[in-house]
């Protein structure tokens, strides 16, 4: 049940969120040793309006994510500083299974073992339909298993995992605000928060943008 002040507050909140909406996109990291497959997955992802980075190996993926082979269980913040001092936020990792050196499965394990990266959804691709391989990956925490060649119809299967990630971040953010006793959600946001809110405002129905924690009254 919504009383007038609450509704207005939420509406203001939504307007603020919408007002801040720019071209923020989900950022996907694609890992594949095959040049052709990298080109394909990049095009597929770009056609779905995702920002894409491609790398050709698991170790390069870890490097990009800020994890080095010897720092597996480091609890770094999930944002990675580049030499430009920019924050890199990866919303989903899609990786080939069969790669020389570090396989997609190895990469999946490293990601799930990392406190800073374990919440990033991971999708595995493979040209071979091996049930034991599929279940092994899903058990290790992969969200989906795509059979190659990946097609445009597969792209919509990514969205729920990307949105789930954003909701989780948004929940954490609001909890943080609660702790800091900052009732105005339209305070000056940092990059990451802005990206989260923009992500939420993109293509969601009003019901979905209304937070579940309706107990939070905006004064």
């Amino acid at each position, binding site marked *: 049940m919504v009383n007038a002040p609450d509704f207005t507050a939420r509406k203001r909140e939504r307007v603020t969120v919408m007002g801040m909406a720019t071209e923020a996109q989900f950022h996907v990291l694609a890992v594949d040793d*095959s040049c*052709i497959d990298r080109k394909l997955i990049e*095009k*597929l992802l770009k056609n779905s309006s995702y920002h894409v980075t491609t790398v050709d190996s698991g170790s390069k993926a870890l490097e990009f994510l800020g994890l080095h082979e010897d720092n597996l269980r480091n609890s770094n913040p999930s944002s990675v500083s580049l030499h430009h001092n920019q924050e890199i936020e990866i919303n989903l990792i899609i990786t080939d299974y*069969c790669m020389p050196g570090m396989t997609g499965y190895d990469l999946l394990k490293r990601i799930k073992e990392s406190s800073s990266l374990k919440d990033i959804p991971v999708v595995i691709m493979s040209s071979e339909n091996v049930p034991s391989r599929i279940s092994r990956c899903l058990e290790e925490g992969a969200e989906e298993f795509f059979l*190659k*060649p990946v*097609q445009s119809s597969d792209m919509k299967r990514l969205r729920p995992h990307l949105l789930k990630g954003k909701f989780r971040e948004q929940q954490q953010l609001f909890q943080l605000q609660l702790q800091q006793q900052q009732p105005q959600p339209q305070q000056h946001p940092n990059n990451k928060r802005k990206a989260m809110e923009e992500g939420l405002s993109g293509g969601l129905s009003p019901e979905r943008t209304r937070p579940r924690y309706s107990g939070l009254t905006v004064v």
Partner: protein
Amino acid sequence: MLGFGADRLRADMNRLLALLFHQGVLDEQFLQLQQLQDETSPNFVSEVVNIYFHESEKLLRNLRGLLSDRELSDYKKMGIHLNQFMGSSSSIGAKRVRNVCVAFRAASEQNNRVGCLRALEMLEHEYCYLKNRLHELFQMEQQRVMAAGVRYPMQN
């Protein structure tokens, strides 16, 4: 009147594509490639296919090299090359090439030298045929684009 050439070329292209599908040389994945091509990447298909040609020729050279040694053939390495060849062929819809790779891989897993040599010959043949027909297709496409462009001359 000038646009007539463009339409005829398009019809020829479609006929060639239909033939290649009918022969099993190409499969549905090639259509997927075409659908990915758009204004932001107008040469997507030819770019991908050119990468495929470049990679495939390297793989074929490697395979021939591995089989040239009568004494010791590294069948495991052959398998790795074949997996790569299979994967890329599947990604562009080169069905017959991919199928020969499967047979080739089976022969290599049995250390069957004669079988491998036969498969390599077939693979080179299939690849050659595919390459020639795709080149034909791309040439027709280039001509079609030019012919279509001439239909509406620029008025400056």
